């Protein structure tokens, strides 16, 4: 599903590479944590998978597509098969929960009728039934992140990327979000999560890949934070 082959990424003007000759494979349906201290290069992996940045060397394959050679006009279509959640939620403040999710559908050409059918369903799934018409500022942090998860999942992507999704949430809320991601993972969606929340990693007991200074130092099937 996801394949990184000898990937090196050096940002312009950086003295050392963010990722240094990293090779890793992730199968369909897996739940993987990338952990490591700040600046270790784990967020760069998300950016590479989204084709936000291109690798300096090496090959990135997502959904059997070589992202490295993907033409720029094909990137939008490619991204529709990937859902994405961030630490800062990235919701539109002037739109309700329903509208935020529907917006993601409408801008890729789905009709309003499709949105009316699918959006309530996915909001129900993430546990926001009854709060569809609240604006982000009327929702708690955890609820906002649920909206973001609903938006990422509404297209039923093959892969869900989560960049520190619990970074702005308290421990209890974090665990609820993790339960949600776990539920999404059980539908067959591959989940890749970048975090430095040791508590969560230890509770989930999933595959853990630890990165330090741009290199993989540990890859454990049912790992803990360490």
């Amino acid at each position, binding site marked *: 599903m996801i394949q990184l082959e000898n990937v090196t990424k050096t940002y312009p003007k950086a003295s050392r590479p963010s990722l240094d000759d990293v090779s890793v494979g992730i199968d369909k349906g897996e739940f993987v944590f990338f952990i490591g201290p700040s600046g270790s290069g784990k967020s760069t992996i998300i950016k590479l998978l989204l084709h936000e940045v291109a690798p300096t060397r090496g090959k990135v394959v997502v959904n059997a597509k070589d992202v490295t050679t993907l033409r720029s*006009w094909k*990137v*939008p*279509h*490619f*991204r*529709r098969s*990937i859902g*994405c959640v961030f630490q800062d939620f*990235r919701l*539109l*403040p002037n739109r309700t929960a329903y509208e935020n999710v529907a*917006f*993601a559908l*409408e*801008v*890729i*050409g789905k*009709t*309003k009728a499709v949105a009316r059918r699918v959006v309530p369903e996915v909001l129900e799934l993430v546990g926001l039934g009854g709060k569809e018409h609240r604006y982000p500022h009327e929702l708690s942090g955890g609820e906002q992140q649920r909206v973001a998860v609903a*938006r990422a999942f509404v*297209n039923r992507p093959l892969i869900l990327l989560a960049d520190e999704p619990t970074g702005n949430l308290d421990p209890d809320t974090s665990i609820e979000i993790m339960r949600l991601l776990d539920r999404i993972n059980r539908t067959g969606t591959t989940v890749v999560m970048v975090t430095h929340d040791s508590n969560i990693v230890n509770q989930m007991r999933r595959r853990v890949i630890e990165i330090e200074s741009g290199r993989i130092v540990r890859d454990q099937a049912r790992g803990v934070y360490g």
Partner: protein
Amino acid sequence: MQRAKYILNEVLVGLWRNVTMTVAMIITLSVSLTMLGASVLMYMQVDQMKDYYYGNIEVSIFLREDVTEAQRAAIDQSIADNPLVQEKTYESREAAFKKFQVLWRDSPDFVKSVGPDSLPESFRVKLKDPEQYQSFADQIKGQQGIQDIVDQRELLEKVFNIFNAIQVMALVVAAFMALAALLLVGNTIQVAAYSKRREVAVMKLVGASNWFIQAPFVLEAVVAGLIGAILAFAAIFVSKSVLLDGRLKALTNVLTPIPDGNVWLMLPLLAGVGAVVSALTAWFTLRFYLKV
């Protein structure tokens, strides 16, 4: 259909969000397009006038007051023998005076002050090729009894030079205004892109196609360009009917009249130029500010 509605709505909201900037953009666009339209019209006009006047151009050979019968006959003969000549007419003093009386019939005092003998007799010659004036004049001027040889073409050229100068001036003004207009378009698009940066980020994230992200911004510029073009056309149309067909009617009669067809032609021309140029500017700006 629904996407079209979405994009149209975004365009209207975008134009309204920053109304002062939109107005400034439209005004500069329309002034620039007015100048462009005026100079294109003038260009077509000068072309048409050249066709008209050069076809009727004459060389006048004025004779001296003390010219003898023999000299006149010699001149007449040498003009008739000259291979450059297409047509010649003789104008006597009396004929010249009659013509003069008709031409200035609105100023009887002026006509009275000129006697029937004050005007010289002349030959009026039409050349096969008006460009050949110089060699014709060189061949003829050796004859006795010639006062002066006048080429109408030279006079016309002076008039046309003035038109050309006005036209160049209009184009220069148009170019400067266009520069200002395009900077304003670019700026407006930047502001629009900034105020919609969250939406754009989400659209990129969920994989909206590039054209869908850019379309509202580009269309915003196109709409401004079209409004500017319509205003410019209105300005040209009004000044043509008020000035040229009204107050300056006399001038219009000397010049050849501007056909209405040419004026109407300015509408699609200005609309096309306004829309395409604004769209390109917006698109170019977005390449730097959206990085899709």
